[in-house]
């Protein structure tokens, strides 16, 4: 009996320790379940590209979800400037081990009929599984090469101007 209580206590303690280990997310996280393609061979470009979604968590708890084309070179990785992209903007909050995001659509290169921008506020829980994030049905891993991408700098500045500091 004592042993059972001891095990239970250890388990609870263990869970609490795990919860405490969930660090606040930061920077860019790229979708990993994507299909990579190569440019036409005659261009002799050492790169590949994929349609991917990227989550961005700023230190001041602002959140960006961007869907676009990611181009990977031998040493570089960028979000394509000219291919279409969809941008959602909002905030993130970490409570214990629960990561919660609230966001709404703020821009779409190729408009969807009947859609209004900004869109309605949506909220979602992001599940943390070790070094992976699960968002909706997609899996994301940390991608430091995208941290400094101009896109996030622009979105954060633009949305600050549009929505004011009270929104984040």
């Amino acid at each position: 009996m004592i042993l059972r209580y001891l095990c239970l206590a250890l388990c609870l303690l263990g869970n609490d320790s795990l919860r405490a280990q969930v660090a606040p997310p930061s920077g860019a996280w790229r979708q990993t379940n994507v299909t990579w393609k190569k440019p036409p061979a005659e261009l002799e470009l050492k790169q590949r590209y994929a349609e991917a979604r990227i989550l961005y968590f700023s230190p001041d708890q602002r959140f960006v979800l961007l869907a676009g084309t990611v181009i990977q070179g031998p040493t570089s990785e960028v979000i394509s400037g000219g291919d279409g992209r969809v941008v959602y903007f909002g905030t993130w909050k970490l409570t214990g081990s629960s990561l919660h995001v609230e966001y709404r659509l703020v821009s779409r290169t190729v408009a969807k009929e009947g859609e209004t921008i900004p869109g309605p506020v949506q909220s979602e829980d992001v599940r943390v599984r070790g070094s992976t994030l699960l968002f909706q049905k997609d899996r994301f891993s940390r991608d430091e090469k995208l941290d400094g991408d101009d896109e996030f700098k622009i979105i954060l500045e633009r949305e600050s101007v549009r929505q004011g500091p009270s929104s984040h």
Partner: protein
Amino acid sequence: MFAPFTAAAKEETFSAFAPWSADECISAFEPEGKKAHQGVAPQNPALHQGITWSNSTVALGLRSLAVENRIRSRCTGKERDAESGLDMFGARYYGSSLGRFMTPDWSSRPSPVPYASVADPQTLNLYSYVLNNPLSKTDPNGHDWFDVDGKWQWQKGHVYHDADGNATKAKGYAGLLVAEATGTNKQGATTYKLTLYDQNKVAATGTGFSGNNNYADTGAIKVGNYQILGRFDAPPTAPNPASSDNNPPPVYGYQKIDPSINPYANAVYQAYGPMRARLNPLDPSGSQGAYFHGQFGDAFHSEGWTHGCLSYGRDTTMIDYMSSHFGNTWTGVSVGTQVEKPQ
């Protein structure tokens, strides 16, 4: 030397003038009474680069301090420093009286002899202008692009090295689009003077812009050399199947966009205009998925700024010419040569 000319002052000063054609340059140096350009080469071809606009501007009553200090060569169209008499080609200064560049050619990547080929000893002279043949060749940016056998190519072997040191051979080019930075528009995007060369002739001129609204340090197309693949990709009719977010499939050549096909094609037209062409980088470190496209719709994309692309705005003259003349061959694109710095 002098401080950079503001875009507005430049436009005001030079908008009334156009560079001379090759024939006009030749005729200007032929003796009085002799018929213009009878196929006889002038005695000193180098001097052909030395005509300025000063007389024209005086005659038109436009003489001012700015004009005196900011004249251009009428043959090369490049801005001339009145004090030194040198023409600014973007990458370096050219001395028209000598027919030589004042500094050796350079490349942004380390190279023992930039833009040179051992197979052609003439190319080893890093000070020469268009291989000493200014009557048949032109050099838009100081890095010696010119036509070879009817194709635009880089001079001297036209081999590029990427960040890993791998050599990449540039293609032969039918056309060359040169985009020179001129200033900033009210949206904070960098503005460009666009010149499209067809062989050694100017086929079209225009203006463009690149960069982001009010954040001039971000999102502008990277300075460097690009190429457009000579092929037409299918027009957009549906979102990319790989995208769950309505994005169109990437394009690597030209793409005509017909808004009448269906509502999705019309939405793409609103974002990119009637045509777009991918600017494929020669230097992989410059890869950012840039396009040359227009801004026609009322969506956020029509506000005079871009995400790292070069936009021709609403004037389709240049892209129409490119697609009709170079649609099946390669087109070279040189961006922002005025701001490129040697390393």
